[in-house]
């Protein structure tokens, strides 16, 4: 809190025109969460979450989001560097394209993935005929779908971090004889490490919650492609509200844990 706001009297009157809409907004956001907590079958929760089906989808979710995050860091950090540090022609357009998955409905992303990587797809046909590789409706497909939607979070976070670092450190490293790769590894990367970490956490969270692209591109097969959100959707569809709520609580807990982790960076507004 800044000194200016701290100095204001705490009981300053809030205009009704601002108070009412903000309370409505708050209710809209908090009531569903409260509903989950109210209707949760707390006593049976250990049994529900301990069931083989739930554990299977939980394991799959954790595994695929983690692999997705590793893939996104491995490709996204170099991509962010390319965007922030080179004078690549068409960089502005490229930057715009990379952020498309952020606003694209994930289901549409799934359709696009099918067109590209489906067995008769643009690249998919070649992949299948050359290597016998087929991505749709496989666990690898889940990772591809998650990466498609989660990669922008990482690239944007890391590029932002790269832009705010002082490039003269890299100049100094070069005069000391460091190659481009050594400079990246020993000077640039450590200085953007907090940005990479934050980007990776966001990326992981987004991958964990991915639904639309996954169900379209990879389907919902228990054990291979049915991740936690897909399992929750399946449960509610067949009328098993208890399982759906139990799975939802797991996701809420994970989300809150992530917010707490990142609190110092974003939620505090600093």
């Amino acid at each position, binding site marked *: 809190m800044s000194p200016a706001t701290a100095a204001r009297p705490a009981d300053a009157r809030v205009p009704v025109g601002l108070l009412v809409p903000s309370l409505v907004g708050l209710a809209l956001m908090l009531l569903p969460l409260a509903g989950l907590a109210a209707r949760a079958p707390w006593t049976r929760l250990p049994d529900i979450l301990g069931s083989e089906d739930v554990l299977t989808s939980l394991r799959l979710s954790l595994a695929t989001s983690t692999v997705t995050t590793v893939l996104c860091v491995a490709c996204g950090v170099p991509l962010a560097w390319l965007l922030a540090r080179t004078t690549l022609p068409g960089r502005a357009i490229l930057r715009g394209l990379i952020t498309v998955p952020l606003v694209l409905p994930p289901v549409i992303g799934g359709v696009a993935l099918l067109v590209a990587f489906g067995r008769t797809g643009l690249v998919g046909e070649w992949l299948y005929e050359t290597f016998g590789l087929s991505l749709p409706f496989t666990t690898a497909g889940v990772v591809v779908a998650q990466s498609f939607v989660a990669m922008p979070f990482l690239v944007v976070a890391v590029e932002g971090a790269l832009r705010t670092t*002082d490039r*003269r*450190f890299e*100049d*100094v*490293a*070069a*005069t*000391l*004889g*460091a*190659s481009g790769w*050594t400079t990246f590894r*020993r*000077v640039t990367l*450590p*200085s953007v490490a907090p940005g990479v970490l934050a980007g990776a956490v966001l990326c992981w969270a987004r991958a964990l919650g991915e639904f639309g692209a996954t169900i379209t591109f990879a389907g919902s097969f228990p054990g291979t492609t049915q991740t936690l959100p897909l399992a929750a959707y399946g449960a509610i569809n067949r009328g098993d509200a208890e399982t759906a709520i139990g799975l939802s609580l797991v996701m809420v807990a994970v989300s809150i844990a992530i917010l707490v982790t990142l609190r110092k960076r974003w939620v505090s507004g600093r």
Partner: protein
Amino acid sequence: MSLRARIVVRRESFRLGVTLGVDAGQVVALLGPNGAGKSTVLAALAGLLRPDEGRIVLDDVVLVDTERGVHLPPQRRQVGMVVQDYLLFPHMSALENVAFGLRARGTPREAAHVEAMAWLDRMGADALSRRRPRELSGGQAQRIALARALVVRPRLLLLDEPLAALDAGTRPVVRADLRRHLKAFDGCTVVVTHDPLEALVLGDRIVVLEHGTIVQEGPPGELARHPRTDYVARLVGLNLLRGEAHGQVATVGADAAVALAHEAAGPVHVAFPPSAVTLSLHRPHGSARNTWPGRVADVEQHGDLVRITVDGPVPLLADVTPLAVAELALAPGSEVWSAVKATEVAVYPA
């Protein structure tokens, strides 16, 4: 062993064109106001900026030759650089910072640390080896930065405003220290600064850069005695006039003349210190042969004295005592007479 450089850099509203020579063991101070192009020269020497035209040769190695398309990257030049805010890598200890260049060139970790420690020792900074940059004072950080640049044994050392980040209290000590280290360095050194005192203390030779062009160069003493531009004159605290000498008189401006102690001829610079000027309200009749009418434009405290800016046929600065200011009731707009003895006036060909 030496540096020979010709650098031309063209930007939309700016053109830099300098020719620079530095002998081994010599320190050249590149002095100039902000925006003169000093840092651009350093960047071109370091390889961080590609000149539009030019040739840079260091110890018989051609670093840049635009005609033949030669441009060695910074990594392949034997150049060390220390910048104003030192830019020590924040996530490394002082020792790791110094060892960085050796490690980057493939020296194994152990050997690099031993060598780096020896350099810290030499800089009197061995006790700081485990500290992080944020735990160092400005003077300490400067010594680490210097050690980091020198440990890879560069042939050319570039210092960009190396004392500007220090507070006024520590600057003289660090400056003397830096001078000692530069004396011990056997390669070429170029120090960029906008502080004339720094240039005079550190430089064996001073090159003055204004608007991308070298306007004067020479040993510090020569520069301090015989400034050739208003900028240099202001820096070294002299009044500078340009005129035409005929015997013992030089005409300056439209209708003013300066009496000289010695005969001279042709275009000349005329210089005298502000402390040699006396001010009075009426035309003086004393021994001073140079008297000019004028009007006070500005009055400001200058150390123990008061510096008066006088406008008139001969614009000049005068340093007088606060008592004189009170007695003469000097204020902007006051009409005054300035007087300077001919023996106080230095005359040299323009």
